[in-house]
């Protein structure tokens, strides 16, 4: 086991796959000698050279379009969109072209490509550089959507995404980049569509994603002092969604809380709540409660952003009140 930061784990995941498969190429803005604005791809340019690690202009449509054209003709490109907010400038490429072309051509075209992007708040960047947009991807048929919470998962799920034969949107929560954790030695490949149970409790099940996972875990520890024993599930992958694991944990405790960085309306937790209501209503002992960012653009000032995003304290308070 080696200890890596989340950003080092991203670079390690891409490097592992580029070394293994000569068809893996990596493009994006400032990803070459600069190593990415979040320094998540440092060393790739030096190791694999300017042809396989290639800087692009500030042209998000060209980045995703080029990755798509390359994917349908034999490459396995990894494309970086610097901030997930910029997906809005190339959403036609992502949602209309990448997501639908396999289906519309009845499988004549395969699109093995990964779109990596820095996502989410906590960095005081304001409403156009802090959005949590994984639910956008989840709403479009034809896209797989992954959002890891630890360095080991970042490396393993990114490797799995690159090997996957379908397009994957890979969300890297930017406040996690500096977080350190153990990463297995040697080749490390995880599996898309598998949630992870991080803590077993008997009173309630808290389901979280990406940066909300460590907050849910800290909240669960403190809830113990209040005699509330919580299970914590890291969803990891929204599409495919491991409903078997998630529903299994809800049934065991009879209560479901979701912790979502998305603004309130149509956050990913709403889908999980709906599935739980449909499929394990009789096992629920109380209402399903969603803990989300309010339905507002994320504000910049630290005090405002901290209150807007689900905090450890808000999770504890919400669970405590609801479990009374």
């Amino acid at each position, binding site marked *: 086991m080696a200890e890596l930061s989340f950003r080092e784990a991203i670079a390690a995941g891409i490097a592992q796959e580029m070394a293994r498969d000569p068809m893996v190429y990596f493009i994006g803005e400032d990803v070459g000698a600069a190593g990415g604005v979040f320094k998540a791809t440092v060393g790739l340019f030096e190791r694999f050279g300017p*042809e396989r690690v290639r800087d692009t*202009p500030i*042209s998000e449509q060209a980045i995703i379009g080029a990755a798509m*054209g390359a994917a349908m003709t034999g490459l396995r490109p990894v494309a970086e969109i610097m901030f997930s907010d910029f997906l809005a400038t190339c959403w036609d490429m992502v949602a209309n072209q990448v997501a639908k*072309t*396999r289906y*519309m051509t*009845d*499988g004549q075209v395969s699109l093995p490509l990964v779109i990596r992007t820095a996502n989410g708040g906590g960095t005081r960047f304001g409403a156009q550089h802090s959005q949590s947009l994984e639910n956008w991807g989840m709403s479009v048929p034809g896209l797989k959507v992954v959002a890891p919470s630890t360095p080991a998962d970042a490396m393993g799920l990114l490797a799995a995404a690159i090997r996957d034969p379908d397009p994957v949107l890979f969300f890297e929560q930017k406040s996690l980049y500096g977080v350190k954790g153990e990463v297995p030695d040697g080749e490390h490949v995880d599996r898309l569509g598998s949630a992870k149970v991080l803590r077993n409790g008997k009173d309630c099940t808290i389901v979280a994603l990406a940066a909300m996972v460590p907050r849910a875990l800290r909240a669960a520890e403190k809830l113990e002092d209040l005699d509330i024993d919580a299970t914590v599930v890291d969803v990891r992958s929204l599409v495919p969604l491991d409903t078997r694991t998630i529903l299994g944990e809800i049934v065991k405790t009879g209560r479901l809380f979701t912790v979502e960085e998305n603004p309130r309306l149509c956050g990913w937790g709403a889908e999980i709540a709906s599935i739980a209501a449909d499929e394990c209503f009789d096992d629920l002992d109380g209402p399903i409660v969603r803990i989300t960012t309010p339905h507002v653009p994320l504000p910049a000032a630290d005090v405002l952003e901290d209150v807007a995003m689900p905090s450890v304290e808000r999770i504890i308070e919400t669970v405590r009140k609801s479990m009374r």
Partner: protein
Amino acid sequence: MSTNVEKPQAADVDRPTRLRLYQLMVELRDFEQRAYELFLENLVRGTSHLALGQEAISAGYAVAMRPDDYTFCTYRGHGHTLARGASMAAAMAELLGRGNGMLHGKGGSMHLTDVKHGAMGSYAIVGAHLPIAAGAAWSAQVRKSGQVSVCFFGDGTTNIGAFHEALNLAVIWKLPVVFVCENNQYMEYTPIRSVTAVEHPAADRASAYGLQPILIDGNDADVMYETARQTIGKAREGGGPSLVEALTYRHGGHSRADPAKYRPDAEVREWLDRDPVKRYRERLLAAGIGEAEVNEIDTRAQQKVDAATQEARQGAPARVDEIERQVWSDGGAAWRN
């Protein structure tokens, strides 16, 4: 600023190539006319965008391409797809929403695709396929396959961002891609000149990307073929991209819903006189090719379209179980376990 229409030397197009160009143009013309008749019978549902009058562009490029080169085209893409060798019956059946359609009913008129013939898709969002065609060219470049990507689009595309992003990327990466603007004078219902800062929407923009302006008669199959040969050859030899503006005219409206009443009668008459199929027929006869041989091509094209129509009409409706097929590479649509 204005760019002159070039007249590439086309005198030495050989006889078999000319016959092939003519045959393709007649087939595309007859297919589109049949598609129109089937609309009138209410057999083609949804929309459809015919390329009647624009056949010389499809034919000129298709004949000059290598079988493994890539074609990317728009929702006005029946001709470009068929020109690469796609099955006419499968295309017609797709228009009719039949199970024997090219895409089993999942794409429809605007998305005809036949990858095994290099027809990499018809794209229905204006501009989207220019970056994608550049991406296929990037792939060909790094795989050193020698393939060239050819991307057809309308004049309206020159005012959307993806056009400019794709051109810039193709030039800086020196990609083997040819961008062909089919300037049929109208974006949809509005004359392109009334919404564009320059007279020639593609050619006058070429210099912004360090490219030579290429403005040609898109209704002349010899000119189209010669331009295709030159631009594809340049791309294949590592000379990078080209941007071609081919002047043409659609004989009908933008889509089946459009009777095209906004076009002045004199303009329509002038362009109908320059009909690329009629013109090329006259040229073949003038060059000494016998009328019987030309008539034979006309007859065979009609027979081919008749057979395709019959096969398409005999197809059963698209199968309902197709709905949840081919979202993913495993052939299915599952998003959960």
